[in-house]
């Protein structure tokens, strides 16, 4: 009887502590937002929190809008769209996507990267963080490489064991080529020829044999 009471007491204390901690975190994160913006995004943040999505990027988006003096309605719409993309990214990168990965994937989805590509990246990248590869994928698309082409090559690089520095070097090379007047997709072709021979070729990842990965056009 006494043991039951003790267990119940511990559970209540734990629940109250979690609630207080969550409210405290929310209060800290929303610091820097004016009351109108904070109130406008509060339901979106609460829903994201209930779905175990990270809320820091949502606050950051709101803060970005606020410092640019964007109307509250526009900020609210941008935060809602971001939450939707993070939800989609969370499903694609399941089961354990980090905040950095979801943030990166939300940008990628905005750039037109399909959820199927994110799933293929998760499969190809194993347990390693995908934040850098997804970020570079978005950069390549922003530089003008077609979405399908960029997606296919980034997945292929992951399958061949490329690491963060390989992706960063690839993006930097493409930037230089584009600046020199080369077409972005041509540059990507050229630079991959320089990177792929130096990667640790994994036996299971020779080429795009993965059914879930985007296929190379014939």
């Amino acid at each position, binding site marked *: 009887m006494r043991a039951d009471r003790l267990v119940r007491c511990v559970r209540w204390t734990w629940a109250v502590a979690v609630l207080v901690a969550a409210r405290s975190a929310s209060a800290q994160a929303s610091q820097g937002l004016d009351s109108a913006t904070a109130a406008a995004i509060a339901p979106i943040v609460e829903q994201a929190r209930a779905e175990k999505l990270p809320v820091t990027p949502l606050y950051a988006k709101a803060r970005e809008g606020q410092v640019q003096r964007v109307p509250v309605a526009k900020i609210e719409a941008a935060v809602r769209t971001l939450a939707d993309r993070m939800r989609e990214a969370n499903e694609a990168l399941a089961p354990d996507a980090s905040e950095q990965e979801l943030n990166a994937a939300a940008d990628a989805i905005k750039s037109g990267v399909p959820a199927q590509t994110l799933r293929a990246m998760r499969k190809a990248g194993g347990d390693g963080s995908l934040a850098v590869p997804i970020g570079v994928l978005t950069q390549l698309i922003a*530089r003008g490489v077609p979405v399908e082409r960029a997606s296919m090559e980034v997945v292929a690089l992951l399958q061949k064991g490329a690491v963060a520095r390989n992706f960063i070097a690839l993006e930097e090379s493409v*930037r230089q080529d584009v600046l020199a007047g080369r077409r972005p997709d041509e540059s990507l072709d050229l630079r991959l020829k320089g990177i792929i021979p130096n990667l640790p070729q994994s036996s299971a990842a020779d080429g795009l044999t993965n059914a879930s990965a985007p296929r190379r056009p014939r």
Partner: protein
Amino acid sequence: MFAVFAYFTCARAANAQWARQTTLDVGATHLTRDDFADTGGGTVAGLWSRWSERVSLVASGAATRVSDGQSTGIALGSASYTVPVNRVRLEGGGTGTILGTTDYAPSSSWMAFGRAHLLGAGWGAWLGGSGGNVHVERTTFPATTGELGAWYRRGGQRVTVSAITVTTSTVSTLILSDESLVRAHDPVRYADVSLIGHGTWRRFEVDAIALSRHTWKGDLASVPAASVAGAWWMLPNVAIAAAAGRQLADPIRGTVRARYATVALRLSAERHGPVAPLRKPPMVSPGAASLIATPTGKGAAVLLVHAPGARSVELMSDLTGWEPKALDRKSGRWELRLTTQPGPHHVVVRIDGKAWIVPANLPRIDNEMGGTVGLIVIP
């Protein structure tokens, strides 16, 4: 206490970015002194050093307990402030030393110094002097030094040549037949000419000193000496350190002439070993800016901006909570150190307080609120 006060005062005054070195050595040593039998024992030594472009603070200490039960402890501290005048740096400061040995009264010294440094690209030269008091065996006498030196650095290697003249005294204690003590001052004047090399190769560091002493006055021997010390960083914060050589008597610090060999485990608060070299941000035309990020380990990164002709550079990003952060100017580029995780981030910069712009080398993306931001990926 003084060091802490100076640290915060000077940091505020100079708005400084601090470099730091903090180590603790625990090991064994073997000593052969000219007037004693060989001894061996345990030793503990610590170093705390902070420096910026203008301020330098160093505190170090060592304690050795040898097999005959004797113990020696030494503590050294120094603080200096540097004022830049074109290519010349004028440095002023002070040093203090306290040395204690079992069965002997402690000795100490306090010196004020001034130096003028001439700095070039990868080389430097200095001229300086110091003056103060030395307290040994209950007597105090003055000491002055004059110094001239130069250094040359290439990558992780550095060579220093210096000549230091010292004018001070040594103390001899005579026990008379009636068992009374008489302490006699023996003025000394000598010059130490030294060649010092320092090298760093990935996880290995080595320091070597060759020194030649020329005594004009007093009973200090005119002899050469040499020593070498090395450390191998087997982990970023743990090294095996070893040193061996001969040290000459130092009347100002109170140390005696001896040969030594030491091996120790070195713990460091800072990471050592190979680090990713800082790349240069791409060149851009005046009025524009380029930005790159380089990880510095332990979830930190340095953001480097190239902005020719800029008087001030600020950065705003999700990395800064969209708060404007002023960047520090360092040897022709602007930099900001941040704690962050690898991944993509949105960023804009502002030059000389004008409009916020996207760095020219970054891809631009729409922020869905009518604005455009740069997309940088931190590796």
